[in-house]
């Protein structure tokens, strides 16, 4: 019987091509607008490391001044000082831990045909790669000795390896960074966590830094501080060392803790650490440390922009308006079939038979609208990409989940919208229609 209903649906759609097309178009427009904004929200609110979200923790310590909180109403600063980041790193209290910061400089390729260019550096520790499951194309991360000795070793992203070495295995080759020669130990494969959870200070949805080097090189090479630098008081000393020893925050710190007991132990360790620092005259504020896992950290940072959410709600309202139009069109279409409905009732169709028949027709319109809406979403996302460029690049990709969601939303919303017209069609009194034809 289902194949019969499907055939009747296609015949009915063909009978009123204009009305059917208008319905499909109305649904497609609503779905297109919705899916464009839902996709942006979905990718913004994505947890890029779900499988380890509960064991990776971002650390915040409240080293701020006594009279004003770093973040209202009473939150610690987002980042740590050099002193605290390196102290926590040396303490090695987690299973893995990595202090990190953003820097950058000029890259001078060995090949004279490639012009020098400026690139971002991610200064970090070797645990970064294993902690965040960073995939390697060639080679591997540097070892812990390289961390301690600030060796001139570098891990490249796939993209910069393409630029410098045409994508070939460059492990063992050299590259000059900020005037000093580095040996390449690894090249990572495609790795674009969205959002860039490990450093949400700038460009939450941007690309990862193009070069990874040991954090201790910050001191030895006096590498500049990129990203956000915030201080509640001026450094006590002049110069680069003065900055490193100051209360200025520019460093992120992540630690891997496998279970709640380890988390409690680590929280206690942080309290003890801050108390020990208080004895040195630092941390004037009451204890106010934070350990947020990845999901908590994303939520705390409100990664999904308010305007993106507002746009999503507006587009849902637009879908509702489109569906209201569809209800009207469907009502008109089904009422136009009154005599056929009356006849079917007369020759033995129950209300249930007619309900299924018209619901199948509605579903066909919904699926057609969903598929066309998917096309509209694709163009909508392309439009966003054209408007916002690189920022939006990673937020404007339709994946299979979104494609299925589009069709499901179209199907369910159209069937819901079709309930009233379908009910009206099923309620037609056969006797009233048969005489009138």
């Amino acid at each position, binding site marked *: 019987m289902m194949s019969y209903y499907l055939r009747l649906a296609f015949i009915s759609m063909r009978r009123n091509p204009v009305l059917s097309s208008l319905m499909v178009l109305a649904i497609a427009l609503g779905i297109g607008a919705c899916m464009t904004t839902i996709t942006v929200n979905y990718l913004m609110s994505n947890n890029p490391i779900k499988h380890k979200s509960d064991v990776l923790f971002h650390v915040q310590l409240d080293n701020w001044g006594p009279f004003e909180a770093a973040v209202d109403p009473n939150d610690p600063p987002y980042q740590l000082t050099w002193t605290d980041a390196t102290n926590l790193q040396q303490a090695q209290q987690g299973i893995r831990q990595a202090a990190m910061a953003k820097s950058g400089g000029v890259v001078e390729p060995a090949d004279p045909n490639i012009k020098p260019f400026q690139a971002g550096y991610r200064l970090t520790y070797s645990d970064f790669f294993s902690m965040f499951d960073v995939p390697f194309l060639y080679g591997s991360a540097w070892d812990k000795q390289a961390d301690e000795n600030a060796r001139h070793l570098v891990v490249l992203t796939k993209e910069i390896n393409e630029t410098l070495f045409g994508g070939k295995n460059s492990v063992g080759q050299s590259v000059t960074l900020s005037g000093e020669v580095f040996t390449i130990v690894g090249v990572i494969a495609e790795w674009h966590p969205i959002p860039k959870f490990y450093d949400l200070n700038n460009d939450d949805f941007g690309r990862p830094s193009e070069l990874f080097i040991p954090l201790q090189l910050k001191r030895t090479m006096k590498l500049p501080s990129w990203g956000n630098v915030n201080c509640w008081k001026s450094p006590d000393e002049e110069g680069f060392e003065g900055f490193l020893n100051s209360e200025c925050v520019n460093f992120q710190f992540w630690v891997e803790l496998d279970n709640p007991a380890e988390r409690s132990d680590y929280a206690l360790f942080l309290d003890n650490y801050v108390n020990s620092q208080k004895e040195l005259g630092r941390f004037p504020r009451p204890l106010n440390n934070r350990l947020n896992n990845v999901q908590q950290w994303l939520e705390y940072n409100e990664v999904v922009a308010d305007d993106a959410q507002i746009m999503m709600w507006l587009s849902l309202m637009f879908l509702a308006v489109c569906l209201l139009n569809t209800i009207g069109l469907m009502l008109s279409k089904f009422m136009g079939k009154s005599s056929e409905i009356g006849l079917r009732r007369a020759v*033995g169709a129950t209300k249930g038979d007619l309900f299924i028949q018209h619901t199948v027709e509605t579903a066909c319109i919904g699926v057609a609208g969903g598929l066309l809406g998917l096309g509209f979403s694709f163009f909508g996302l392309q439009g966003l990409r054209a408007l916002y460029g690189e920022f939006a690049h990673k937020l404007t990709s339709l994946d299979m989940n979104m494609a299925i969601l589009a069709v499901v939303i179209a199907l369910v919303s159209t069937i819901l919208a079709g309930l009233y017209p379908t009910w009206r069609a099923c309620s037609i009194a056969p006797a009233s229609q*048969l005489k009138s034809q």
Partner: protein
Amino acid sequence: MLKMENIAKVYRTDVVETHALKEFSLEVNEGDFVAVTGPSGSGKTTFLNIAGLLETYSAGRYFLDGNDVSGISDAARSRVRNEKIGFIFQGFNLIPDLSLFDNVDVPLRYRGFSSKERKQRIEQSLDTVGLSNRMRHLPAQLSGGQQQRVAIARALAGSPRFLLADEPTGNLDSKMANSVMTLLQEINQQGTTIVMVTHDPGLAAQAKRNIHVRDGQVSELHEVNTEHTRDVVNG
């Protein structure tokens, strides 16, 4: 076969109450060919709609095939219509986008027959009305008389116990009307009970019995073939 006892049908609006049928009593026996005549608004079509379970009634009892169908559910009424009653309408009521084959198929679809049996029944009933060679045509490609023949084929396909025809020749010229009437007589001779509403006394005279309806009541019955007239029931 069909027995109505004191059926009443009242249409109510906020301001007016119309009695379409009043104490309407009638019995139609198996194999009958009954023509129902009467002026416009007399209640002929209301009677036919109630007989075909297309409308409910306000009072009285209705027995179809010996079963009281007065209080049965909407779904049960659909089943009875599908299995026992065939309808022929003045306006043919064919679905314009469906071929003749698919039009005749409509009642069979709700019967749950296998596709093989449906095909067999459709071909047989289109053959009965002389249109088996045009099964894939659309209704618009046929004349009015041929369209009414398709409607008759549709009514016959489910092998109903009786046919209800509402002005079946009302939209046809006299030649076509006679041909349709001849077809109905043949169908009746094969054992199908027919109740036909008509305005045309000539056609009514070709039925076995005539019923005249006036003001929602049966006013007289004629046994046409015996030329015997008797006063009736509601007298």
